[in-house]
């Protein structure tokens, strides 16, 4: 089986399995609507720019993050409980490709939740969504998704050896949205937390995305360059992490112990 087939098969199986889980239906359909209501009502009396940039985009990003990262990390746990984690780890097909396929499958489904957020916000709040720069929006959105995928792979590897995946997943959800400024600008955070924010690619990707929708005080390159640098750094870290985990898994032999 070549790499492309492994990714594609893993992606399709993942999408079928995920869609059959009721909890993911919440993440895809109910969560986006309820998050949009919470953020929409909180930003209801603010200017239209803020409403679009933080309520609509923020709700979309929250759901995108939950779907991609939260579900991908959870999939490791599900594989462990189904006794299939050690099988997909030791199968001739590369574990990295299988995991990438899973995350891509979640990403495709997550795009639906993002779209639902935008449609619901437009219809429910009767607020026309305008875009400042369409080409930038498309490019920034693709980069945001890529940034989320890179972080998701990193987190999924990190949690491969852990027996408490569920706990750590919950610890990552809101704190990451806070640090990366999904629903308010990171300028509102204290200086020392902002330094942490700068380390994560989604922080820069989200700023680019916001630039495409509303007028902002920062420029394209001052966000694009740090985004690329942080993505490269995280990719290298992920590759290094995989080597450690691969070695540890063989030494410990406890991958399927829950």
């Amino acid at each position, binding site marked *: 089986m070549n790499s492309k087939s492994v990714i594609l098969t893993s992606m399709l199986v993942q999408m079928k399995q995920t869609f059959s889980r*009721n*909890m993911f*239906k*919440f993440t895809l359909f*109910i*969560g986006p609507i*309820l*998050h949009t*209501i*919470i*953020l929409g*009502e*909180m*930003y*209801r*009396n*603010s200017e239209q720019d*803020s409403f679009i940039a*933080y*309520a609509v985009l923020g709700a979309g990003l929250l759901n995108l993050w939950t779907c991609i990262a939260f579900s991908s990390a959870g999939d490791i746990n599900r594989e462990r409980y189904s006794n299939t984690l050690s099988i997909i780890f030791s199968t001739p097909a590369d574990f990295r490709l299988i995991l990438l396929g899973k995350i891509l499958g979640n990403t495709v489904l997550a795009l639906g939740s993002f779209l639902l957020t935008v449609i619901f916000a437009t219809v429910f709040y009767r607020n026309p969504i305008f875009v400042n720069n369409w080409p930038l929006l498309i490019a920034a959105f693709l980069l945001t998704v890529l940034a989320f995928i890179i972080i998701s792979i990193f987190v999924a590897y990190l949690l491969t050896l852990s*027996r*408490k995946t569920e*706990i750590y997943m*919950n*610890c990552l959800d*809101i*704190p990451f*949205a*806070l640090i990366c400024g999904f*629903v*308010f*600008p990171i300028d*509102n*955070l204290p200086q020392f937390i902002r330094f942490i924010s700068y380390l994560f690619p989604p922080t820069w990707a989200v700023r680019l995305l916001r630039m495409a929708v509303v007028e902002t005080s920062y420029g394209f390159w001052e966000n694009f360059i740090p985004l690329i640098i942080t993505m490269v750094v995280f990719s290298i870290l992920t590759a290094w992490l995989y080597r450690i985990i691969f070695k540890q898994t063989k030494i410990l032999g406890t991958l399927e112990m829950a």
Partner: protein
Amino acid sequence: MIRRFCSQAWLNAKVNQGGLDLTEFLAYRVGISITTLIFYCLIANHATGQIDLTRWVVGNAFALCIYECIFGLGICFNSDRYYGRLRSIIVSPTSKLTVIMYYGVYSIFIAFLTIVVSFATGGLIFGIPFNDLNLGMLMLAISIAVFTCVGFGFLFAVLALITDSIYLLLNAIGLLIIIFSGANFPVSQLPAFAQWIAHIFPLFRSVQAANMSFGGEFSSLFGQLLIGEAILGLVFYVMSFILIKIIERIAIKRATLEIF
């Protein structure tokens, strides 16, 4: 009887915390709560431009008890089913009300602690005027809010016996409580039918009452809100008990409680 109840409640508490060391306990129980409170308060600060965030600190500290009362308690029977203990509970002569109650002891304790710690920490971070606080009123509001939320959690714990979508249900209910509690925005902003629904959700009245504990004194409105919240809680407990009696009977007759 009381001794057995206490030992079961203690055992349940140990089961809940068994897998966590101190660092994980602090990260999972305290860290998530405080981060969530900070998250919503910062959104409020940015969205409204308000510097005084007292209302949001109070509201979100209360809303945080849903993690224990709804998510924690809501899956207790589901976990029993998963670990094969449910059949023992159903066939044992012990009153199911007692079983429900010993599950609740731990949740009441943790939910109360969550609200107090989150409120104190959030208050220090966002500089809320503690000198204006009527501590007695706040503690009363917290106690009744926890009582009602635990009752609401019981109801879903029992419902978990007849549905395979409990996680979907609990997550949706968790977000609905945040919406209807008025913790982050006034419920009056919502359509009329949604405002009516808010009255049958926990925290709607207790959050209003808790906000009155700043610079306020015991008043008839404060009393009415808390009595209303307590009655609602009582209704949840009675509904849970009736529902578990019905499900228990069905379970014994059909013997399919562990099968979906």
